[in-house]
């Protein structure tokens, strides 16, 4: 089951890279609260996954690689290609489902002590800008602590926050908010 889930997660990411991200979130995630975010995503992966994942069935798919969103030439699949940790409302808990991804990044950083990474915390749009900046910082620091526990040196990481200032998704509904409560891993 965990393996299956990871594969599907990878397929979902490929979908995002394929530029289908916006459509996906507006149709599927609308009815999906945070906790069950993976349920409709799985469904989406079933129907559209093969083409986007490049397994060879569809013949006219073009996968967009957006270098501004991803950390360069990282593999288009696998935990290293994932760089976002999503949070529940009012929560700072790094959920277990992000463990493989954080482990993979921690491994890279541990193998190369000169590599540095910024952990950028974000909140949804509700509430005050300064308080949200502090909340985003708290999320970033929760991810930082997790990665330090996984063997990364503290001085390789900086937890920073954008508060509500840089939403990943525009919108004022739970679907958008869930996509905006996040920490992004960014190479430096």
């Amino acid at each position: 089951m965990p393996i299956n889930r990871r594969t599907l997660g990878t397929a979902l990411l490929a979908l995002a890279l394929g530029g289908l991200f916006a459509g996906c979130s507006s149709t599927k995630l609308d009815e999906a609260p945070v906790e069950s975010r993976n349920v409709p995503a799985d469904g989406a992966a079933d129907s559209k996954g093969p083409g986007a994942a490049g397994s060879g069935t569809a013949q006219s798919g073009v996968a967009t690689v957006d270098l501004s969103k991803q950390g360069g030439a990282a593999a288009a699949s696998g935990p290293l290609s994932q760089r976002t940790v999503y949070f529940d409302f009012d929560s700072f808990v790094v959920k277990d489902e992000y463990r493989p991804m954080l482990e993979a990044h921690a491994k890279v950083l541990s193998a190369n002590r000169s590599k540095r990474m910024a952990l950028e915390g974000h909140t949804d749009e509700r509430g005050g800008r300064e308080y949200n900046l502090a909340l985003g910082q708290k999320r970033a620091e929760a991810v930082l602590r997790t990665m330090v526990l996984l063997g990364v040196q503290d001085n390789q990481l900086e937890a920073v926050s954008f508060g509500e200032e840089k939403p990943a998704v525009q919108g004022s509904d739970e679907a958008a908010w869930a996509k905006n409560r996040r920490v992004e891993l960014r190479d430096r």
Partner: protein
Amino acid sequence: MAVDKQTPSASVTRRTRPASTPPSWPRRRFLGALATAAAAPAAAQFRVEITGIGGTQIPVAVATFRDEDKSPVPVAAVVRADLQRSGLFRMVDVPGGFDENSRIVMSEWRGRGADALAVGSVSRLADGRQDLRFKLWDLVKGEELVGQSHAALPADMRLAAHRIADSIYQNLTGERGVFSTRIAYVTRAGSRYSLHVTDADGEGGQIALASPDPIISPAWSPNGKELAYVSFESQKAVVWVQDIASGQRRMLANFRGSNSAPAWSPDGRDLALTLSRDAVAQLYLMSRDGGTPRRLTQSSAIDTEPAFSPDGRQIYFVSDRGGGPQIYRMPVAGGNAERITFSGNYNISPAISADGRTLAYVTRQGSAFKVMVQELAGGSPSAITDTSDDESPSFAPNGRLLVYASRAQGRDVLMTTTLDGKIKSRLLTSGADMREPAWGPFGR
């Protein structure tokens, strides 16, 4: 009587001292004004959208200044809009053809229902400056309150008009006006962020900083010459200080983590700010020249949004040490924090009036965020808006008005309001979303 009667301008020549300062306006006249109060039509070009009527309004006539149509600024219209926005005045229509030399027949003017009359003229001096003359009559007592002559550069005509409004305000209320002060705010248009400085009526805007990255939390130095703010231009929150006139800027706080929420001490020497360099967001004090920050709070919770009391001894701030965010107060010298807000489970963004008596803040009610006002000596908080996305209240330096960000017709807008919430006006919109207002001090 603790008011400074001098108009804050070096080049103003006062030819007549006011006979009595301030004039004692008979209370029954106020009440009469209240009974007949009606929303005066706002000068359309200033979009003073008055949404309520104040308790007592002084009826004032402001005649169109002679030859003001030849000057770059419609002087009388600026003055009228200023006075209306304060909520303390009702405009009485006045025919044209009057200036500071006109003989004023008091009985005739009283019949029009005005308690005071402002008249004046604009003329061009040989050196290119504009000579702005103005006279204020107390129609009740039948005496001249102010006579002024002011030579202004064409670029300062709007400021000169605001100073006339300030003079009228001060002579009729006994308090300093804020019409010649400035407001800083941030706009976002697409991915362009701009830090603006405008007159208190939202006009005459200039851009102090333009950036592809967010800018938040502008804060005026007490002398009105510098702005501290948070810029994300280096992909993290860093506190900068910028000289407004020259544009010179310096990085004040760029420590590990986030640096934010700058607040100047009243003497202008220090700034309180929020740093996450040692732990979660905590409050620190730094010299305006930089150096090593001194940590003010020692909690394991978020402490942010510091605001000094006017005497500089206390700091109000937001902390979620008790669960949700609430407003607390602690001595700057150190000591225990005392909780100030008790109603609601989400209270943020404290602002303190210049007399230290009134707290404004934002509370969450259900899914709405509203500006609240509370007397610090005791009293329950009251909501003063009917909007539901309010942010960032900031007091005018005379403590009579607040500016705040809100949402109206799908846009982020800036509003001013009287503290009782009865008179509101919307600052000029430029098509961009406006947010993070900060009302500047008296000086500039």
